[in-house]
């Protein structure tokens, strides 16, 4: 079983998280920019409410066995130093039923992703 981890993080933390994932041995990731707000309903500065705050979405697909480790890596890196702050982001986890590599046309299995021939 493979797991898709989509994390919404601060844009300024994106490079650090990407480097941490690389060091942790999970190089494969897709990044795109998004805008959104959370439970705090955006940021209110004076009379102006900013409710479309720029964020970065990172998507990576990993083995179910590595799920907790990857989530912990992203969380530790993306959290504002100390105990964290509003706006640090969210991590969403969903199941992936099937996964294919286009260049080889091969259907990935959990065993193949671990480097064991399927």
């Amino acid at each position: 079983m493979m797991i898709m981890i989509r994390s919404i993080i601060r844009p300024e933390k994106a490079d650090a998280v990407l480097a941490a994932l690389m060091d942790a041995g999970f190089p494969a990731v897709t990044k795109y920019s998004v805008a959104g707000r959370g439970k705090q309903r955006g940021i209110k500065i004076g009379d102006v409410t900013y409710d479309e705050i720029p964020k970065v979405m990172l998507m990576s697909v990993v083995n179910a066995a590595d799920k907790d480790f990857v989530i912990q890596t992203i969380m530790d890196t993306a959290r504002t130093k100390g105990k964290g702050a509003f706006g640090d982001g969210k991590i969403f986890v969903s199941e992936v039923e099937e996964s294919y590599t286009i260049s080889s046309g091969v259907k990935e299995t959990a065993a193949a992703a671990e480097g064991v021939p399927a």
Partner: protein
Amino acid sequence: MKEVIAVVRINMMNQTKQALTDCGVDAFFAHEAQGRGKGFVNTHILEGAEQGYVEAAALLGEKGKLYPKRLLTAVVEDSMVDCVVETIINVNQTGKPGDGKVFIVPLADAVRVRTGETGEKSIV
């Protein structure tokens, strides 16, 4: 119903769009994205470019370079999944690293905003 998420090369978008239409998937959305895979891509191919090489290389960053990609998301019926995956692979396959990935994620429900229809009806 299933959500088919594909990461493909940006210069393959036109062919992919045409092929998806031909196989009966008219509705999808695309997103500009950057990504990296297992890291087997040869960056020296960029050096052949005459213009914009420096800017392109700078955008890629130092560690674990990210390459510009397109993220396609299509919501299709269960019976269409095999056809869609086959189409995307056939069109995008060059055999070199960096062709992209296709993921299939189960989806609980969908709603068409215009009519309020739910389930299979909302995506047909």
